[in-house]
């Protein structure tokens, strides 16, 4: 974990289910913001990022059902083929759950190097489905969002673990 290095003796509190739901809703809202132009290209897929994060951190709490439902919502909001994001997020959730022990062994940059290929795979699945439906290749800037998401991975980890930090012990000097 990213912060294991900083304070190895800190044991994190269990994460609250409500907090997970809240972050996933926030990711959905971020995805639904009216992005346009260049911001649209470099915008990471926040839902994919959060689904992957929770599948790695809490694979027993977040899994296929959440990923699949969020995928359906994204399909409706985007007006794309029903099921394309659902399929991509399901496979992403699988990768996260299977690899969660391995990824959590690492900290810092090696963790990002695990995450970015998974997000690129997510993009490739959507691209493959669209290509099968007859769409053209939108250009390599299509993958830019996943690299931005990789850059966001470590700050996100610190941010999302804040509520899990134990309260400072008043008796402890």
């Amino acid at each position, binding site marked *: 974990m990213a912060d294991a290095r900083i304070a190895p003796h800190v044991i994190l509190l269990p994460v609250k289910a409500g907090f997970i739901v809240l972050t996933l809703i926030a990711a959905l809202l971020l995805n639904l913001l009216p992005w346009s132009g260049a911001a649209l290209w470099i915008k990471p897929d926040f839902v994919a990022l959060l689904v992957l994060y929770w599948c790695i951190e809490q694979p027993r709490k977040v899994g296929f059902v959440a990923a699949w439902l969020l995928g359906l919502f994204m399909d409706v909001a985007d007006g794309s083929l029903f099921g394309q994001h659902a399929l991509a997020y399901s496979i992403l959730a699988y990768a996260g759950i299977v690899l969660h022990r391995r990824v959590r062994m690492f900290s810092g940059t090696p963790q990002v190097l695990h995450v970015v290929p998974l997000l690129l795979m997510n993009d490739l699945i959507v691209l493959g489905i669209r290509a099968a439906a007859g769409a*053209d290749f939108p250009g390599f800037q299509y993958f830019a969002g996943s690299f931005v998401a990789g850059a966001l991975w470590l700050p996100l980890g610190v941010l999302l673990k804040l509520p899990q930090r134990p309260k400072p012990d008043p008796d402890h000097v």
Partner: protein
Amino acid sequence: MEHQPPPFFKTGPTPLARLLIFSALSLAFLVADARFNYLLTLRQVAAVVVYPFQRIATAPASIARRIGEFFVTHGSLREDNARLARENFENATRLQQLEALRAENAQLRELLAIRGRIGVELAAAEVLYASRDPFTRKVIVDRGSRHQVLPGQAVIDNRGVVGQVTRVYPWLAEVTLVTDKGQFIPVQNLRNGLRAVLAGTGNDGALELRFIPLNADYQNGDRLVTSGIDGVYPPGLPVAQVMHVERSAAQIFARITCAPLGGVSNHAQVLIVRGARELPPRPVEEPKSPRARKSRKG
């Protein structure tokens, strides 16, 4: 004999099994949606669930715009006012001519016993956001089936045709822009009346006239308007302007690129055109009998 694992280790099906279940479900949805257009109800349900999030996410931008509208300067207001008064004056003169022409046109049509052009009803709608899917050219507007919006209705703005309503949810509608790949619109060249079908290319700001013979009379700057023969778009709405005509002897057809006239990539107000033209039913094709062919020969 049976060794049940303690409840602590019970985690349900393995991840691989779950992956197969959810992937199969997604693929079934994909095929059902792409090939058969099923799942309309499911889409509607999901749309109703997502609707509040869509409104919340687009609220900051629209609130910011409204605040920006509130704080306009006196100078810009006066400028706008002067410009609008001038435009109004110019338009009023044109409108007077138009009234006379319309009356004359109606009279002539009556004389010739041609079906009249019905008046269209317009409903204003606000573009909430453009689709984030880089493969499609679609926008979501804040009018839906609760506001009598139907799939297939044309969507225009103050300059020309923007697109067509393709999916309708209770409070939202999806508009496929004319630039979307696979969006076709029957048009007519305003200069010489040539009919053609204009196709979207998937690129912003580029449309294409397909299957036009090399010798067809198209020039740069020609304006294309809807022909109305489809019964979907009302006739005479401006659609696009011819930007580039490429005639090469190596190809059978001319390559004609056009630019849309409507503000296709602007986030703004649009108008949904209600009331399509009632066309007479298509004549039934008579089966060809061998006798008829013989008589033509002889």
